[in-house]
């Protein structure tokens, strides 16, 4: 029996209890449903819910705790042979046992003992699943019987049902908060473990980044250095180039679209810019690597400049193209929400359109425009695929846009794709970088959203 079958069975039980709840309610007033407190369907739904709830609870418990229980039982069975293993070797062994039971690839040859453990693993996980499903089905039947038994014309089933619905709606809206808590706690937890290996000051102020640590203690050369300054500098360089491209172009197009373009032109240009915004970043990355980077390298060598094939300039330009629509649409909103009376006042004093825009509209829209820049900067800092495909891998502390630099996101991807060692400083450093990224973007977003809100209040 698989999980799917179990869900189907529980669903059938719930459906049956809906039908019987409905019938019982109608029968209890001999078909005259005016005498019922709630509609018959409310009684049906309530009994279905009551039959569903305990089963779901059992399955959730099984889902959350069964891996832990299975692991403990497995360790108990392995007791004497694993006492002298390090935690890392132990987790590797457990993973192998798990993989063997699933028929996946192993990191070692299959021994008799390992096969036995795998069989044992399959047996106990099967048994626990059977016990849980049996419990779920029994509880479901029991509760559905009790619920139907309790039905009487006086039962306030609608009130109960609505209270339940309201609670579930609240629970759903809390998931957004849980996500944030999940992000913060997972990043923070792994970062603290990373700081056990590398002191905080070395991470934030260190000038050298080479995360390759020695696998064996007798290896030379790769001790690992986790100074994040070159990554921050690279990220800032590329973001700066991107903003240098995107801000003038985005702002110009927003001004043109709101102040100069006819309604018809606007209805053509706006969707086109939206297409630019909807193109996946991996496509931009491919474009950067295929077209822009070779173009810049070739034109650089034509005028005698040495340009790296993964130059910061190429990645920055393409990232700038990517955030043009963001800046233009945000500025567009801000500029069009400047009250018409300000424009009329300026025109009344004899100002031309340009003078109105430069001296009246832009100054009053400034907070909103600045917040658009901040959001765009945060977007550029966190952007991953373009830099993964077009920027370099080696940490390089330079301000020269023609050289290759690497960014925070590139390093996170490089550290976490491919073979990972658990708990090594190398893997954990990715989470520390992630936390730094999260904090910076959060601050930028927060300021930007605050500014927009303040600005909106000003004209409301």
């Amino acid at each position, binding site marked *: 029996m698989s999980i799917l079958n179990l869900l189907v069975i529980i669903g059938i039980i719930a459906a049956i209890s809906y039908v019987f709840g409905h019938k019982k309610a109608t029968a209890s007033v001999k078909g005259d449903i005016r005498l019922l407190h709630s509609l018959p369907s409310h009684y049906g739904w309530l009994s279905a819910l009551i039959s569903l709830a305990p089963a779901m609870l059992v399955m959730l418990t099984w889902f959350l705790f069964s891996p832990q229980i299975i692991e403990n039982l497995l360790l108990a069975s392995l007791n004497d042979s694993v006492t002298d293993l390090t935690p890392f070797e132990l987790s590797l062994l457990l993973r192998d046992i798990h993989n063997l039971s699933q028929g996946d690839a192993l990191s070692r040859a299959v021994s008799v003992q390992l096969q036995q453990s795998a069989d044992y693993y399959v047996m106990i996980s099967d048994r626990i699943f059977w016990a849980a499903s049996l419990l779920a089905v029994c509880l479901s039947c029991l509760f559905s019987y009790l619920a139907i038994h309790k039905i009487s014309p006086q039962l306030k089933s609608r009130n109960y049902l609505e209270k339940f619905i309201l609670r579930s709606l609240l629970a759903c809206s809390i998931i957004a908060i849980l996500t944030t808590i999940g992000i913060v706690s997972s990043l923070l937890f792994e970062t603290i473990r990373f700081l056990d290996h590398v002191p905080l000051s070395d991470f934030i102020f260190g000038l050298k980044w080479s995360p390759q640590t020695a696998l064996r203690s007798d290896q030379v050369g790769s001790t690992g250095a986790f100074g994040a300054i070159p990554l921050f500098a690279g990220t800032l360089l590329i973001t700066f180039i991107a903003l240098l491209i995107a801000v003038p172009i985005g702002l110009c197009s927003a001004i043109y679209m709101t102040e100069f373009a006819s309604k018809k032109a606007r209805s053509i240009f706006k969707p086109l810019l939206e297409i630019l915004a909807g193109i996946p970043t991996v496509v931009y990355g491919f474009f950067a690597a295929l077209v822009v980077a070779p173009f810049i390298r070739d034109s650089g060598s034509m005028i005698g400049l040495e340009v790296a094939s993964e130059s910061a300039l190429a990645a920055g330009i393409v990232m700038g193209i990517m955030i043009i629509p963001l800046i233009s649409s945000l500025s567009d909103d801000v500029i069009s929400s400047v009250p018409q009376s300000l424009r009329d006042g300026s025109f009344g004093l004899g100002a031309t*359109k*340009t003078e109105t825009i430069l001296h009246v509209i832009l100054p009053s829209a400034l907070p909103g425009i600045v917040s658009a820049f901040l959001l765009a900067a945060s977007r550029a800092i966190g952007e991953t695929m373009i830099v993964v495909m077009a920027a370099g891998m080696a940490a390089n502390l330079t301000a020269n846009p023609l050289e290759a630099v690497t960014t925070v996101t590139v390093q996170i991807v490089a550290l*976490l794709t491919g073979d990972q060692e658990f708990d090594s400083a190398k893997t954990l450093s990715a989470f520390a970088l992630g936390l730094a990224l999260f904090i910076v973007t959060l601050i930028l977003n927060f300021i930007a959203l605050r500014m927009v809100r303040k600005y909106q209040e000003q004209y409301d």
Partner: protein
Amino acid sequence: MTDQNQNITPPTQGPTGWTSEAMQARIRRRYRTEKIFKLMGLGGLLTALATLCILLVTIFYTGTSGFQETRIKLDISLSENAFAGVAALDKAEREEALRKVNYSTLIRNSLLKTFPDVKKRREVFALMKLVSNGARDEIRQKIIADPSLIGKTISLDLLASSVVDIFFKGQISRDIPQSNRKISDQQIAWLDHLSADGRIIRQFNRSFFTSGDSREPEMAGILGAAMGSFLTLLVTLLIAFPIGVSSAIYLEEFAPKNRWTDLIEININNLAAVPSIIFGLLGLAIFLNVFNMPRSAPLVGGLTLALMTLPTIIIASRAAIRAVPPSIRQAAIGLGASPIQTVFHHVLPLSMPGILTGTIIGMAQALGETAPLLMIGMVAFIVDLPHGVMDAATALPVQIFLWADSPERGFMEKTSAAIIVLIVFLIMMNGLAIWLRQKFEKNW
């Protein structure tokens, strides 16, 4: 403005007379500035659109040839002794036996018959390089489908290797010296011979849409990645849609206005702007490391993307619910409906088009997202098609990333072709959203 005035006009005259020379000059200047400024705005807009054009044209230019493949028509003699005893076996055994037959020999014999003067080992090797490794499989499939072919000589269009393919698409020039290209002069001579015989066929590349990934560019297809994307998006939709709509309903209709609600609201707005790679880290730390879910599974990818698209869906749904006028609610309540009934029977159905539009846009975003999927290991080389949400899979944008990173020249057009497919999907989804908006949007 005042200091400008002083610059232009002498203080004695003053700028009052419209006909005065100074005033005219100033007005001309102001209009010139106006024109320049307007052109600057238009220039910005056109630059943005020009980059869009360049991007799309480049992708389509390199990508359209990816939908075509080159085949070489060869007469393969399926001699009895290569298939000794196979015909007598029953179906299952026959398939097993056919797996062991050396099809390379059959192809080699056929090629040698066409080019009798090729003798040296190295030349034979170079000759064999013209045909794809996948050709052997094609012969086998043919025989499995029709065992009576054994003993006959059949004419088959066999898949050419990637080098041959891109040579015929004109991506390898004959002019560059032999050492700088992957195809030798000798091979080109053979290909010219075959071409003159009419044995080179270019046709629509069906296997691009019907097979999974491969190490050989000519055999690589996107079906596996598309299935992976579909399964991932299915999970995303099943999780993000109900949760997103529920929380939008709660926040718009039932939440008391207090600090707690404010916190949820600020939180959702901030989550919408968190970089996608952070959600990948969350998926890695929570779903993979804490809950021990399988790596590379669409289930995990779907969960991660669901958390990412949740804010988009919530914000769009809230706007749609807010747009339903209060009179609808008042009417329902006046007729005795409870607040929950009001919402589920009246407000929600009326706001559904807006909610669906927002959801589709969120799904389109999730379809194009790559970075979080890299974090949870959906970046592996996977040949088999995924059949369930627990199977290892990859997604369309990740496949694009993998192919773009591949050094093989032949993958370039496949990358662009896959991008075209992805963009077509995105345009379809956005088109659906726009259609929904226009068809069902009401102006109250």
